[in-house]
């Protein structure tokens, strides 16, 4: 699997990442490292434990990592969670189904990791 095919499959913005990182090799290296990044899992865990503050921090972090790696689909979900849980955003929170978003985040995260593992194995 090429890096282009990977980004195609996970709904990512490869061109955006190419502006951020100096080479495709580095992109490949860091996208593989994304498998070790715990921010998405932490967000889901904190939410299930009812720790909204930690869930916000983790989602915010996940959003940052996804932005850097151009993981647009995941970024969108993480962003929605961040905005819903951001202190002071109770109006957004009221109209957002955070449970559903967190589930969505977990499943999207899982399928992204699947694709990345396949990419990693083919490299």
């Amino acid at each position, binding site marked *: 699997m090429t890096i282009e095919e990977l980004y195609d499959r996970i709904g990512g913005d490869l061109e*955006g990442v190419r*502006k*951020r*990182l*100096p080479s495709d090799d*580095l992109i490949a*290296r*860091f996208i593989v*490292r*994304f498998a*070790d*990044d715990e*921010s998405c899992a932490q967000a889901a865990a904190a939410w299930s434990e009812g720790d909204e503050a930690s869930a916000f*921090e983790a989602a*915010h*972090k996940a959003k*940052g*990592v996804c*932005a*850097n*790696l151009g993981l647009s689909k995941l970024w969108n979900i993480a962003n929605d969670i961040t905005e819903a849980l951001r202190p002071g955003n109770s109006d957004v929170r009221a109209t957002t189904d955070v449970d559903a978003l967190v589930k969505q985040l977990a499943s999207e995260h899982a399928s992204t990791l699947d694709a990345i593992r396949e990419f990693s194995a083919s490299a």
Partner: protein
Amino acid sequence: MMNAHNDLSQRTVRRKVLVVEDNDLNREMLCAVLEQQFDTIQAQDGFAGLDALAEHQAELSLVLLDVYMPGCDGFDFLRSMRADSRFDTLPVIVATASDSVDDELLCLKLGANDFVLKPYNSEIIMNRVTNMIRLRESAAIVNQLTWDETTGLYSRELFFRTVEDFLTANPDGEYDLVCSDIDGFSVLSDRYGSENCDELLRELARNLSDAIPGCIAGGRIGADAFAFLVEHRQAWPAEAPQEALDNLPVPNVSLKFGVVEHVDRATAVSIACNRAMRALETVKGRHGLLVAPYDDDLHQRQELEQTIRETMEDALDGLQFEVYYQPKHDAKTGTIRGAEALVRWSHPTIGFISPGLFIPIFERNGFIIKLDMFVWEEACKEIKRCEDRGLPTIPISVNASRLDFDNPDLPERICELADRHGIDHAFLHVELTESAYAENPDTVVRMLGEMKSLGFSTELDDFGAGYSSLVSLNMLPLDIMKLDMSMVRQATATGDFRIIESTIKLAQVLGLKTVVEGIETAEEAQRVTDMGCDLIQGYYYSKPLNRDDFEEYLKRG
């Protein structure tokens, strides 16, 4: 102390950037970008960041800081870092999300230098980091100049700051500021070379620091200018001790000193230095190690000079300048034969300003050309008025300054002026001093010749004052010689009129008419008349008169 600064020209090594960010992936990606050009040190939160700061302080060029981190976040990091003076000059770039304007403002307040937006853009980050490091390093170069390498004294800016700090820290002390500079330093430097002159500056700085009693701090405030803050001294001697000139690598050095006593804490040190330098200017060009105080007289004179320079244009537009006319009378018959136009300045706030004060300033700054033109025009108008009113029409002479002769169109301009006012050229005389001639003899001779051929008479002013040259008498196309009033003053004081008599004879031999200026008594008038003088100007007949009085004077005949 000077060696403590890094020699940037030798710093070709890669600069080191501290990256403080808690998310491993983000931090490593950032470092991957930076490592294209920089070495990086990583810290996973604010605490680790502060530890890394302390450990790597000397080698760090910049900090790239994330805001949200568990434990010690970016704000805490900035607070701690900026409280520590060791990191004063280490720049911090904060990475923030585009949605956090408040964070940016707070970071700025806490001492961040710049921002980059997340997600990171490789090119933007590299540019920001490179520019910030470059900016800081140029500032460091400037800071390097805090000590003058040649003399070991403070540099100008640091001297000012040091003295200000000292004065603040010692609020009850009385201090004087001494400035000195070397006469004709550029000539010395030309003759003996810059190495010898650097050595000269070094020795002088050392000598002066030792020779000036109670010296607290010394600075090199100009190429050849030193300044010293010293404990106040009751009476400064008029001359500095010769030891100041011991062991100099260059012969015949002459130093001048200006002193501002009781340095005023409300006045910037730079201004006090300027004042001391201005006091020093008053003894420049004289021989010896002279010391000049900056006192109220000098202060007031310089304030006045400044006011003159600042208000002269408005004064001319606002008709503050007024032309007065001092009559010249026939020595034998007493009939009025002419008048000299003299300019007076009535300043709205200062009052009467002596021409002796403002003319030299205008001669230096060139304004004299405008003012002379104004006087020419006023004289033309006055001649016309006298004609129109049926008053006796007499020639009026106008002073031309040395600078007027820089303009080759002068004869033409005066001609045009006279014609515009319908004045017979014979009624306008030009008076020039020998100093005008001395500067540029050929031009002055030619232009004066032109004026004569256009019908204007020419008068040599102030003959016998200063350095009169007999050669100039022979060269200049003149009609009239005016004997300076100082000749009459001296003759009356000594009872010896022989010089006046022979000067009049000399003028007669050369075919020149004579005017004796400064005649105040009947006896003086009689003596110079007996000697063959043609015209008399002075208080014996009349002081300079304003226009109305002058016309009244003419009416009386």
